[in-house]
C-alpha cells in the first residue's frame, strides 16, 4: 500500500553547457532544477507542474565564489554550504555566514543553491533579504547575452521573478565597499525552519575614527524576510538611517520604522503584532552587530596603512 507523493509526469533533460540550458529553457513550462529542495516538494504538491526540468547540476562553470574588482561574485550554482564555507565571503560580508547558518539544515545546504534560493522567490527565503540589504545585482544570461538587474527589482512577487523564457540566473554580484559591516538576525520556531521573521543589515560608516565624535552612517541596507516587505527591503528605515549617528537611538528608531512599514500576515508562525515586534527587535540587533563589525573592519584597515582605502 503506497500513499507516496509523486510529482506529475515531467520530462527531464540534463544541460551540458549554459548555451544548452538556455536553448532548453526557451521551451514553454520549463523549470531549472539544481538542488531541487524547494521545487520538487512543490511538484509533489502540484503547486508546480512544469512540462520539463532542466538539470543544471553539471554546469560547474556556474559554481564559484570569487572577488572580481570591487564585487564579490557568486555563481548561481554555488551551494549554500559553499557560501557558508567561503572565508572570502565571510570576511567581506559576515551577513552571509549569519544567514547560511540558519538556512534549512546542513544536509539541505549541501545541495540547495544560492541561485535557486533567489529564483524560488519564496517570501520566507533568507538570501533574498540578504542580497537586497547588500544591494546586490543579478546577472541574467539569455541567448543574446547578459542583463544585470538589481536584486531589489528581481522579484515580481511571491514565487515570481523577472527571469523570462530562455533565461537563466548566472551570477549574483555584491558591491564591496570599505568601512562596511553586516549581520543577519532570524527567529524561527525550531532549528532549520523558515523564518518567523528575520532582518539583515549592511552598514557603511564614515568618520568618528579619531576623537570623540561618533561614526555616522554613510549608507544603510536593510532586508526583511517573511514579513511582506516590498522587495524584501525596509526602505523607510534605510532612508531614516542615512547620515545619522551609528548609535543605539538610531538603531532602535530604525527598528520601529521597519516594523511599522512591513506587512506581515498572521499564520501558524504567529500573529501580526508578534511579527512586527520581531521586526523591530531583529532590525535593531542586526544594525547593532553590523555597526560593531564595521567598526572592527575600519580599525583593522586603519592599522594597516599600506592597504588602499
Amino acid at each position: 500500500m503506497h500513499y507516496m507523493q509523486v510529482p506529475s509526469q515531467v520530462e527531464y533533460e540534463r544541460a551540458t553547457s549554459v548555451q544548452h540550458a538556455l536553448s532548453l529553457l526557451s521551451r514553454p513550462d520549463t523549470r531549472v532544477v539544481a538542488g531541487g529542495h524547494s521545487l520538487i516538494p512543490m511538484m509533489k504538491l502540484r503547486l508546480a507542474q512544469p512540462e520539463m526540468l532542466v538539470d543544471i547540476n553539471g554546469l560547474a562553470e556556474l559554481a564559484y565564489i570569487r572577488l572580481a574588482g570591487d564585487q564579490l561574485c557568486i555563481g548561481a550554482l554555488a551551494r549554500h554550504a559553499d557560501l557558508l564555507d567561503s572565508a572570502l565571503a565571510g570576511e567581506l560580508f559576515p551577513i552571509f555566514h549569519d544567514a547560511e547558518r540558519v538556512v534549512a539544515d546542513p544536509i539541505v545546504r549541501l545541495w540547495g543553491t544560492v541561485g535557486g534560493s533567489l529564483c524560488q522567490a519564496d517570501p520566507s527565503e533568507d538570501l533574498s533579504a540578504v542580497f537586497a540589504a547588500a544591494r546586490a545585482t543579478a546577472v541574467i544570461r539569455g541567448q543574446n547575452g547578459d542583463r544585470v538587474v538589481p536584486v531589489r527589482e528581481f522579484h515580481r512577487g511571491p514565487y515570481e521573478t523577472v527571469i523570462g523564457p530562455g533565461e537563466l540566473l548566472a551570477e549574483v554580484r555584491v558591491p564591496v565597499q570599505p568601512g562596511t559591516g553586516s549581520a543577519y538576525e532570524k527567529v524561527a520556531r525550531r532549528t532549520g525552519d523558515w523564518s518567523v521573521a528575520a532582518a539583515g543589515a549592511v552598514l557603511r560608516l564614515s568618520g568618528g575614527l579619531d576623537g570623540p565624535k561618533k561614526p555616522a552612517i554613510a549608507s544603510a541596507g536593510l532586508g526583511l524576510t517573511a514579513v511582506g516587505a516590498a522587495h524584501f527591503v525596509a526602505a523607510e528605515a534605510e532612508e531614516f538611517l542615512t547620515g545619522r549617528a551609528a548609535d543605539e537611538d538610531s538603531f532602535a528608531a530604525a527598528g520601529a520604522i521597519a516594523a511599522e512599514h512591513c506587512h506581515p500576515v498572521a499564520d501558524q508562525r504567529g500573529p501580526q503584532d508578534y511579527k512586527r515586534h520581531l521586526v523591530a527587535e531583529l532590525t535593531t540587533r542586526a544594525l547593532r552587530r553590523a555597526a560593531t563589525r564595521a567598526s572592527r573592519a575600519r580599525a583593522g584597515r586603519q592599522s594597516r596603512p599600506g592597504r588602499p582605502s
Partner: protein
Amino acid sequence: MTMRVAVTVNGTEYARDVEPRLLLIHFLRDELGLTGSHWGCDTSNCGACVVWLDARPVKSCTVLAAMADGRSVRTVEGLEQDGRLDPVQEGFIECHGLQCGFCTPGMMMTARWLLDHSPDPDEAEIREVISGQICRCTGYENIVRSVRWAAKHSRREGAEEAG
C-alpha cells in the same frame, strides 16, 4: 514515458527504465530492492531517506532518480565492508543509538560523512550535522554517544593499523 537511468549503488551498477518523475528513494527501495533507506516524511524534513549521492549526503525523497543517472550512490547497505560493520554501525549497537530504527539509516549515513570530514567531532558538531534529521525515540542523546563512540573506535583502529 520512461528513460534509462544507470546508477552505481554501493559499487554495483544498476540500470532501469523509469519515469523521470521517480524519486531516488523509490528507485532504491522499489526498483532495486534496497529497503535499508527509509521513506519518511516525503518533504525533506525528517532525513530518514538520507543516502550519499556522489559522496555527499542527500535527502533522497527530494532528488529524482534521473538526477542520479551516471552518478554513484551509497546507502546504509554499503556501510559494511568485507563483512565488517562500519564503526558507526558498531557505535549504534554499543550505545543503544536506536529504538524503533526508522531514522537510523539516515543518521548513520550522515554520521559516516561527518567522521570522514571531521574525525573527532564534539557534541555540538554532531548535533548540528544531524539537525535536519528527526528521531522520536532517543532524544538524540544516544545517537550523539554512538557517533562519539565511532569516532573513538576509528581512531583506535587507525592507531593499531599504524602500529
